[in-house]
């Protein structure tokens, strides 16, 4: 209950801050405001994937079904956030580079993340036996995880990208104006909180379902 109101208030303030408080960025102007949404969405998309993978590995170690359920719902949440990050990124690309999609290495990486989520759900839906489904999908998500560094960190080094510097860039420096940074961090915390809230609701649903089955 308190989660809901705190998050609602927090987002109200952050959204107001994004449009009123933060100044337009140098060069990009008002267009830069989309990064307040885009970057945290992409961050949660990757975070949820990481949590899903960790739960998959935990399932392999313990064979307890709740870890498999956790892996599955984290992947579901991650898919939604990744889709939103892709869409906001495409809007940004349309207005700065001239087209929605141009196979920039960054777009390729997020596209592959979407594909991994898609393949994960395709695999889950094609196995009947729950234990077997849990084990195979845990193996798959771990396998997919080890290819992510190749895509996210190595391919953009090999091929040129138009994407603005990631927040954690090679020089370990944050190139952002002070007020923009405040709003940005507020959104980062807000979206992470939103993710935590959804995840907590999902695990409550799972607990209740397990209790009523008994």
């Amino acid at each position, binding site marked *: 209950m308190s989660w809901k109101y705190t998050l609602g208030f927090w987002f109200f303030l952050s959204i107001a801050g994004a449009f009123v408080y933060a100044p337009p960025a140098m060069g990009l102007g008002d267009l830069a405001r989309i990064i307040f949404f885009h970057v945290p969405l992409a961050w949660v998309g990757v975070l949820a994937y990481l949590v899903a993978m960790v739960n998959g590995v935990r399932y*392999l170690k313990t064979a307890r079904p709740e870890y498999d359920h956790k892996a599955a719902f984290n992947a579901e949440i991650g898919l939604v956030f990744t889709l939103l990050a892709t869409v906001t990124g495409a809007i940004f690309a349309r207005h700065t580079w001239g087209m929605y999609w141009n196979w920039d290495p960054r777009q390729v990486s997020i596209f*592959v993340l979407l594909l991994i989520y898609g*393949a994960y759900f395709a695999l889950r839906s*094609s*196995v009947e036996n729950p234990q077997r489904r849990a*084990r195979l999908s845990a*193996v798959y998500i771990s396998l997919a995880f080890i*290819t992510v560094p190749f895509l996210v960190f190595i391919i953009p080094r*090999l091929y040129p990208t138009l994407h603005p510097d990631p927040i954690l860039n090679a020089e370990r420096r944050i190139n952002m104006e002070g007020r923009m940074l405040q709003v940005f961090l507020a959104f980062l915390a807000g979206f992470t909180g939103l993710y935590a809230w959804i995840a907590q609701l999902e695990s409550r649903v799972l607990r209740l379902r397990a209790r009523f089955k008994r």
Partner: protein
Amino acid sequence: MDPKSSASIRRVLALVRKDLLEEYRARYAISTLLVFAVTILVVVGFAAGMDPLPGHLHSSFIWLVLFFAAVTGIDRSFVKEEEKNTSPTLRLAADPDVVYAGKLAFNFLVLLALAALVLPLYVILMNPPVKNAPLLVAMVVAGVWCLAVTTTILAAIVAKTGTRNALLPVLSFPLLLAVLTTVVSGTTMALEGAGFTGARQELQFLLSYSVVMLTVSWLLFPYVWND
């Protein structure tokens, strides 16, 4: 060499021999792969065979043919064990490590045979300008090795699912996309006449990818195989 590891090597070789013998008698995998590859080649050849194409299109076509041919048939190596119910016996007869190594070696050999047939055919049908043939061969071998490493464990996964068809392309594409982009750019370099030093980055990438994938597959394979 200690007796235990030489015994495992003998077992791996026995498994590869068994699979090759089976393949020689039924010719299932290689005929499916090859017919599929020739179909794509002919489609590509009809569409673009007469025009002089730039190098990067040639290398994308080569890998289009090899990738799709590989993922349509390579899961046979595990699916056939499930279909003929020979997998419980295999599970009793050998450790998962041995089975993994044997199947990987067999899949690599099948894909090498496929590439050895497809590549000359492509050169005949499409006339790509091959300026550095040794590098082209090295790129194809490295790419096929990465394909084999990635698809072997995925084939084991696919064999355990209910549907067993059309799943391998879906599962393998996201994992192989990094390999495909790299190997396509490396093959383009070979066609356009770059030396081994020019393509060093690509070869290093493929090597490190395959080492990482091999290690993790090795660790995870028992979870897939022991059901």
